[in-house]
């Protein structure tokens, strides 16, 4: 039994436990350099838990209007009630689902699509010119302007907000990753892969793509932050997610006219929104410092 265990084995990949240990070591390293990140992780963890367990936390039917109009925060209505007598706390909790869903969906679509387009554009010269001019053109529009125009056409809904925000998100990922691909293309390991006859998809996805992940992960956190903010701005302006589906942005909008008499309607969803974005930015900052200490202190 013992001799069998002591036989030398060749490990092709780190074991699961070693990966977890490595992850924790990296995490410790990140937090030591930047204690703020711990704050970010804690806030985000709480918000994610709230989002996951939202159906258990929500106590009332927040879509139903009642006669308890604009009640101030109390033990019964923690965040008070809005102009239609709906519980603001329940709406904020329910709204966290939509706000985060839009944020994560936009980030996933932008990163995946942006990575694929950038890999091909960076590798093939002819494609590069066409794609990059198009990307330059798209990025000349402020995100909100392009999104507003698209939503005016497509109509306001959760999916259309995701589509509208993913357009700019993808374009900015393409610009970022394509620059990386351009320099990676000239590396020796790519030349070696080409020399042994690797097919193009293998060179792109197995050899080049993993080397861009560091930059992409950092950028993804900022995309998440800006997507959550942009969705909130669109919904606040009444051109995003329709009012009957609560999101942090459109809940703030429902309190717009009641600053003097019921500030709590707009105040609390804004706190959730700010804390979530703050947490994501703090984590992104720390990741960037860890992956590339040269860029310390710059974001976006």
């Amino acid at each position, binding site marked *: 039994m013992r001799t069998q265990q002591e036989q030398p084995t060749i490990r092709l990949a780190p074991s699961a436990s070693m990966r977890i240990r490595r992850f924790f070591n990296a995490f410790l390293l990140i937090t030591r350099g930047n204690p*703020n990140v711990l704050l970010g992780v804690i806030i985000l963890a709480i918000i994610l838990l709230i989002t996951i367990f939202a159906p258990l936390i929500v106590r009332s039917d927040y879509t139903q209007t009642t006669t308890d109009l604009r009640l101030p925060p109390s033990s019964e209505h923690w965040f008070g009630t809005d102009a239609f007598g709906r519980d603001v706390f329940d709406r904020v909790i329910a709204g966290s689902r939509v706000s985060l869903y839009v944020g994560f969906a936009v980030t996933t679509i932008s990163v995946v699509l942006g990575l694929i387009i950038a890999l091909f554009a960076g590798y093939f010269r002819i494609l590069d010119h066409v794609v990059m*001019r*198009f990307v*330059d*053109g*798209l990025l*000349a*529009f*402020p*995100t*909100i*302007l*392009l999104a*507003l*125009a*698209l*939503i*005016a*056409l*497509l109509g306001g809904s959760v999916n259309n907000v995701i589509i509208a925000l993913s357009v700019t998100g993808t374009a900015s990922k393409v610009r970022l990753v394509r620059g990386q691909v351009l320099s990676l293309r000239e590396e020796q390991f790519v030349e070696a892969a080409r020399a042994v006859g690797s097919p193009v998809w293998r060179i792109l996805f197995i050899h080049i793509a993993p080397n861009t992940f560091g930059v992409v992960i950092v950028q993804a956190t900022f995309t998440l*932050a800006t997507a959550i*903010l*942009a969705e*909130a*701005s669109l919904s*606040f*302006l*009444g*051109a995003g997610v329709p009012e009957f589906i609560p999101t942090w*942005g459109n809940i*703030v*909008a429902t*309190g*717009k006219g009641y*600053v*003097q008499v019921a*500030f709590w309607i*707009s*105040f609390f969803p*804004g706190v959730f*929104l*700010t*804390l979530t*974005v*703050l947490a994501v*930015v*703090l984590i992104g*900052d720390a990741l960037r410092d860890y992956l590339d200490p040269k860029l*310390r*202190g*710059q*974001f*976006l």
Partner: protein
Amino acid sequence: MWRYTLVRILSAIPVIAVVGIITFSIIHIAPGDPAAIIGGDEATVEDLQRIRAELGTDQPIHIQFIRWISRLAQGDLGTSIFSRKSITELMAPRLQPTLSLGIQVVLLSTLLGISIGILSAWKAGTPIDRGFMFFAVLGFSAPGFWLAFILIWGLSVNLRWFPALGYSPIGDGLLTHLHSMFLPVAVNSILSSAFISRITRSAMLDVLQEDYVRTARAKGLRELVVFLRHAFRPASIPVVTVIGASMASLATGFVVTESIFAIPGLGRMLIEAIIRRDFPIIQAMMMVVATAYVLINLVIDILYAYLDPRIRY
């Protein structure tokens, strides 16, 4: 230098062309008839016909594009579907509030952002630095419309220092104008100075490690002189890029603040157009804003090449 300037100007042309193509085609990407989308549910057949004729969508698409581009080239931004007035005329009175907001915000946020950034770099690692930088991240995280709400609640509802809504044009007197613009200017300046201060701080910290800064200190120059004359000048290059790039986010901020504070500027005009689905106005706005963005960045790039000869080669 001339060569660089010329190449840079020429490189902006395809970008503006692509901006034009995107702006033109945006109305055609939605499934269905654009006239039906604009007209809404209650539009009659005659309404649709009229809108189609006004949009020119009863013509083949290449004819539409050529007509649209040639009108643009003559400075004609089109005609609003609802008021039937020329968009250039509609935009003219909206320009002053937005420009005034823009100039104030750029000046104030640059001043604030750079001073805070230099102060933080000076006191790097101390509680002052940490405090400023934490507020900078907070400023980046807070949505503009919520910050506006907090300022209205605090400064206008409770303290009654500033009006919550309403706009007094410069014609009413400069002080009245600045007073009415204080809250919207403050909201946008807080957001963009948060960004500028972080970039300034990191650029300063980079430069402060250079040999010539050590030489300057070794010569016995006062710390203030070292900071402002030797370190800040080279550090200002990335800062200027950021200010140029932040023009795009300023546009976002203006759309939101103009709608909150009821400022009759271009941002509010855009929102009104979006609600009415007045596509010629939306397209005109897209064209103007994106072209302005490309041109501002073009000017900044060329200015750089003058400031930093390394860029030219």
